[in-house]
């Protein structure tokens, strides 16, 4: 962990949906270049936290501090502007668009100069070339950037979705269950890709997973949520998959004192 340089501080974040307290004063730090796994049972509040970090919803109370400055993400575009990219399990790609159109979704480049920019005339050739280059640098093999997403396998889609996020995410990559829908071989490809990204690009990642083996393998630290509460933050060398499960289920009591 590069000298423990803080990237993002989650500071007493709470979120209520009516009477449901999805998050109860959750606080922890994310450091540069580390992989943090966010784990917890169904309904623990993981996706809620991810949505707050990516600007899809706003917290009821609490602050986000990005590189030492308080930030407010009112829309996804705000979070994206800070270099925070999120890959949602079911919302990663638009099936009806091809690979390049997906990678450049919301970040189009235009031709025909100022007029083309104003009219929004897409420079598809440029975007396809750039997509092919970017994906091949990440060792993601796709026959052509013009391939429609609807004809790709689950593993290919996930790889493209992560590739898209890496292409634009300068600071933090958030992955919500990146391997949940994948087979054994495809899962392995995605995990290797995640490890390679950390080692080569030094990018921070927050990964949600229900698979303890995967978590234990790729994470540097593990943050456990239980019923909306942050119950533990554990360094991998100090723990075991069994202990993580014990925190998740409540067999082991909260290590973090309620604030």
């Amino acid at each position: 962990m590069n000298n423990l340089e803080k990237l993002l501080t989650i500071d007493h974040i709470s979120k209520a949906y009516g009477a449901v307290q999805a998050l109860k004063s959750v606080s922890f730090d994310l450091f540069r270049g580390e992989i943090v796994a966010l784990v917890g049972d169904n309904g623990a509040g993981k996706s809620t936290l991810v949505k707050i970090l990516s600007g899809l919803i706003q917290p009821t109370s609490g602050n986000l501090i990005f590189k030492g400055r308080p930030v407010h993400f009112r829309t996804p575009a705000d979070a994206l502007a800070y270099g925070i990219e999120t890959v949602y399990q079911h919302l990663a790609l638009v099936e009806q668009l091809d690979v390049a159109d997906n990678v450049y979704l919301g970040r189009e480049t235009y031709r025909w100069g100022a007029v083309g920019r104003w009219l929004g005339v897409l420079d598809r050739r440029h975007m396809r070339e750039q997509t092919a280059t970017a994906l091949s640098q990440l060792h993601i093999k796709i026959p052509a950037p013009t391939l429609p997403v609807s004809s790709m396998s689950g593993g290919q889609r996930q790889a493209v979705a992560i590739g898209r996020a890496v292409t634009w995410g300068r600071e933090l990559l958030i992955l919500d269950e990146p391997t949940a829908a994948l087979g054994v071989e495809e899962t392995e490809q995605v995990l290797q890709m995640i490890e390679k990204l950390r080692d080569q690009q030094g990018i921070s990642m927050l990964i949600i997973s229900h698979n303890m083996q995967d978590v234990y393998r790729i994470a540097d630290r593990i943050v456990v949520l239980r019923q909306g509460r942050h119950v533990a933050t554990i360094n991998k060398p100090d723990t075991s998959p069994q202990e993580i499960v014990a925190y998740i289920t409540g067999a082991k009591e909260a290590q973090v004192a309620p604030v």
Partner: protein
Amino acid sequence: MSASATGLPTTRRTSPGEFFAQYGIVLVLVVLVVSMTILSPILREGQQLFLTPRNLIQVLLQAAINAIIAVGMTYVITSGGIDLSVGSIVALCGVLSAMVMRDVNTFNLFGLTFSLDGPIGAVMGFGVAVGVGTLCGFANGLLITRLNLSPFIATLGTMGIFRGIALVISEGRSIYGFDQEFKNFFAGRIPINETLELPIAVIIAILIAIVFWFFLTQTRLGKYTIAIGGSEETARVAGISVQRHKVGLYALCGFLTGIAGALLLARLNSGDPTFGGLFELNAIAAVVMGGTRLSGGQGSISGTIVGALIISLVQNAMNIFNVPSYWQQVVIGTVIVFAVVLDQQRRRASRY
């Protein structure tokens, strides 16, 4: 077709089913034209009533107004929405535009009096129709995005509201007696050669089709429309202002419907609060026949144009064969059902 993690076929083989689904609509058009050409003299004592320049121009003219609305409808349906209020917008635009042209003859600016007869009046009438249409579409968009209503329910409501307003302000009567300059231009024809004259309405429809084909396939507007129809949430998390874009799409549909309303007003030489009945049916029929998915995420302007031509041809055929016009609605409704069935089969064919 199968796809694996390791490799994918880069070329797709087209099955007969897929081929028909893709080009079937053009085939239907060709079959209609050929059979009409053959049947018309047989059934009408040797007279060729169908394949004459005059009649074919009539087919195009019939198709033009529907095609213009259907282009807007293509965008709305591609985004996963629907607009049932287009017929009422046509009526409201016609009534308001006719009233303004009839009643506002002069206006004062900086102490000078301008006459609003002639070309200025015609431009003003057109401007009112288009402006009212755009505002109506804008209202639809706001209802859908701000109040979170389903497009079906929101535009079902405004379908009643817009027509109701048209009835109220016209007191249920036709509005006529407005400037002839308007009619002369918008219901006019441009000579192509000695025998052939192309109606202005057809030329406007062709221009609109080209421009909005370009926007759908080549620009951000089209891409975002497809993305929103494909997966609204994905578009949102990609940082696209989905709500704003949707409002824009309904405003666009209203804008094009306003143009159609102005053309109808010129053609019928009066604005009437009952005009535009079932226009939504014809527009939606043209769109779904043309291969645009009712579920959103895919749209085709060229398909929509072919669809509008088919509807016009069917109407024309029924006129030639003296089928009572009431039957036309039965036929159009049936065509919609068939088009949706075709769409479902196509979807099954494209799955692997």
